């Protein structure tokens, strides 16, 4: 057959653009979550494409725990300047006042206060009726069933048993007062799709994804980078330089690095294909208990 047809990446791109446009056309106050990682970078790229030549018609929201890698913040600000989008950064003021941190409060409480609660505060303060996120269905079992337009009640909670059926590409965007929508334009992308898209579209990423010598400590097999002077060393611990990179980006004390020499995009994709561990393994927040992601999502986490 000689009919021109689209490749899977072109199809995924077009569908994501359609979803982003539907959000802009259907909601009063949309916002896009911007976490600075690779999925967010793809989302930003798609949003620029969706509305070109207009600027992105909604702000990007970054929930800043104050424990992000320093380079992430610098990258975030350079992107905002380069692409001219509105950036809203929010930190939980009570958490900040109480000096909530991953060392004293543990990953679970820290995440709840500085991420989940902070996100709720930011969404309420902005009176956002739609929040766009970069979650994918292949990431985690509970995500496999989540809708692209995922309804949240007035408390930002998800009811997995009472989701709206989602047919064709006809999205029900209707809300009652106080309710909101979480929208996941790259639901149907896999990790490999994200990387190959970054490769083919030449999308800019923070250098943390690429291997470099970085100061790390080894905590029972997980390599933690010492990114600033707030790091708490345990007795006898000292940072040592290792060639590492990150598969996901988040709060530096909670994000494990992997030993790698992959310093270019093709090398990273190659290494990812050869490695046989799932992406979220490097994220410490998921390992607290079984079904923990689903529970967090019901409470309003992305």
């Amino acid at each position, binding site marked *: *057959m000689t*009919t*021109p*047809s*689209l*490749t*899977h990446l072109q*199809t*995924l*791109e*077009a*569908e994501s*653009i*359609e979803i982003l*446009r*539907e959000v802009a*056309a259907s909601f009063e106050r949309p916002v896009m979550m911007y976490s600075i990682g690779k999925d967010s970078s793809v989302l930003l790229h798609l949003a620029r*494409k969706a*509305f*070109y*030549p*207009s600027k992105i018609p909604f702000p990007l929201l970054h929930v800043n725990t104050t424990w992000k890698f320093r380079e992430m913040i610098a990258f975030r600000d350079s992107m905002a300047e380069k692409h001219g989008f509105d950036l809203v950064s929010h930190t939980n003021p009570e958490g900040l006042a109480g000096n909530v941190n991953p060392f004293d409060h543990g990953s679970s409480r820290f995440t709840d206060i500085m991420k989940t609660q902070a996100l709720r505060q930011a969404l309420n303060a902005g009176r956002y009726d739609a929040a766009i996120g970069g979650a994918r*269905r*292949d990431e985690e*079992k*509970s995500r*496999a*069933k989540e809708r692209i337009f995922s309804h949240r009640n007035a408390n930002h909670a998800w009811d*997995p*048993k009472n989701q*709206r*059926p*989602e*047919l*064709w*590409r*006809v999205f*029900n965007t*209707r*809300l*009652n007062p106080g309710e909101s929508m979480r929208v996941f334009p790259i*639901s*149907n992308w*896999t990790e*490999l*799709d994200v990387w*190959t898209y970054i*490769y083919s579209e030449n999308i800019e990423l923070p250098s943390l994804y690429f291997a470099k010598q970085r100061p790390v400590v080894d905590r029972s097999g997980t390599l933690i980078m010492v990114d600033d002077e707030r790091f708490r060393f345990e007795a006898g611990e000292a940072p040592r330089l290792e060639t590492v990179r990150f598969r996901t980006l988040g709060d530096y004390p909670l994000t494990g690095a992997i030993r790698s020499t992959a310093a270019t995009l*093709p090398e990273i*994709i*190659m290494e990812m*294909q*050869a490695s*046989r*561990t*799932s992406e979220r*393994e490097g994220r410490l927040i998921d390992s607290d208990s*079984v*079904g923990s992601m*689903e529970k967090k999502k019901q409470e309003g986490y992305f």
Partner: protein
Amino acid sequence: MSLPMRTADDDLDLWLDQQTQKSLLRFLTCGSVDDGKSTLIGRLLYDSQMVLDDQLASLKKESRNRMVGEEGIDFSLLVDGLTAEREQGITIDVAYRFFSTDKRKFIVADTPGHEQYTRNMATGASNADLALVLIDARKGVLTQTRRHSFILSLIGVKHVVLVVNKIDLVDYDQAVFDKIVADYRAFAGPLGFSSLEAIPVSALRGDNMLGQSANTTWYHGPALVPYLETIDVSEDRSAQKFRFPVQWVNRPNLDFRGFSGTVAAGSVAVGDEVLIASSRKPAIVSRIVTMDGDLTSAIAGQAVTLVLDREVDLSRGDVLTRPGETPEFSNQFQARLVWMSDEPAYPGRSYLLKVGAQLVPATITDLKFRTNVNTLEQTAATKIDLNEVATVTIATDKPIAFDAYRRNALTGGFILVDRLSNATLAAGTIEFGLRRAQNLTYQSFDVNRDVRATMKGQKPRIVWFTGLSGSGKSSIANLLEKRLTAEGRHAYILDGDNVRHGLNKDLGFTEAARVENIRRVAEVARLMADSGLIVLVSFISPFEKERRLAREIAGDIDFAEVYVDTPLEVCEARDPKGLYKRARAGEIKNFTGIDSPFEPPANAELVLHGAEEEPLALADQLHGWLKI
């Protein structure tokens, strides 16, 4: 299956280019857990190396004491769902799985098989190009096989693979396979699938999954995965009639006005003449804009921004088409519905209908018949319950552009949304338009009250509230109006506030002025009802004579007098506007109940006891009585 290359010696760029050039196949799996559906999907994920080391280790642990193949894994555990479902031991929803080979990326919609999950299956089918219909070789074609196949044809899935699973448990017997295939073909014939392939497999043992099994030498067809990798499911959407639903108007500045959307069918090139489906106004495409640079043409599936050569009235919801290729444009059509809500559907109810980017109020005007999903038998019905399929006629408040669903799923598939809860209630597929609105000749009939009422889908009437000041008339009328509006009815309240300040501001409170006040209000109510509205009149109207006058003015319009009977003491205690206080102090003369009489109606159609129940309950009571 060929796997992504893993060695450093391979040509990395070539491999990456290959990754970017894959095609996409979306398919649906139909069957129940007993048929080995989860095992089949788990096997596909495992064989395509989508199972990671850390997952595999925990799987092997969990697989002890379960039925496993050579690999020592219970594949069905891979497709486990949410914890709530895991605890209850049920699968209630659609889950999406992903795997890929060097040729294709696959998106699998995994849906439950039981009858009560018809809606979930329809949901999964709506985005699928192909379906795997699983059959347990020991059981053959069952009622559920028929149900699944009917829903597939209803949603328009064109390609079916009949997976005769557990072939190992019937000793790889060709006769068993042949009989199942013959049975299935006999009944699936009329369902009109474009392709139907039957494959004998054992998902557990891997027979005919990746390659020909030595256990079925009698089978000469393709193995499952190679078949899925190569089947051509492109309907050649680019060759169809051009459809471009406008999704978003792109206006960065005064010099640029573009129309953003996804080409739903056909193709478009710079220089093409296009038509707006609703107004039939033509224009020429002057640019096709994307961030990667302007294109000379765009095909179905591409998300682009079109710029036209002239100023046209075009906004979200409109559809661009081509001369001679226009879609239907009508406010009535016949459709099939899959009902997805616990709350049944009734003819006459108003919903919101969304097709493409068009959102309009719509009413089910006629329920023609219900189709039994197991027997395909058609029976008369007065309502549609959860998971039932029915054929209906639907009227929309204004004409919309659409195609028959079998011609174009994106312009012929719609959802119905509840006007109060905003829940998605139904999936609909348009069969054909019933009246072409663009052919309406207004001379062919007189526009009268009946015609206007039919357009609004309601019976015009006047509801005349009478009762003391503070009795609750306005509260009840307001709540009733809210409820009617939410139900898609068109209602209007006439009360002292909106009439005395305008139309009747020249009138005082003498007896003659009061009669004239009522006469004017009654005339306005009659005109409004004649235009098709439900009119709620909320006036004290204390005198029998005035109320009789209002009834006479209404003529043949349905007129209901509703007496809100609240004792004077209660009204006076409420005194919402402080009027009783002022009347008692002598500041207001001729105040009803104080120094002017109230004549209780002798023949009111309905009496509401305002001191005994809350306004909301009374409004509900009235709503029920009105049977709107």
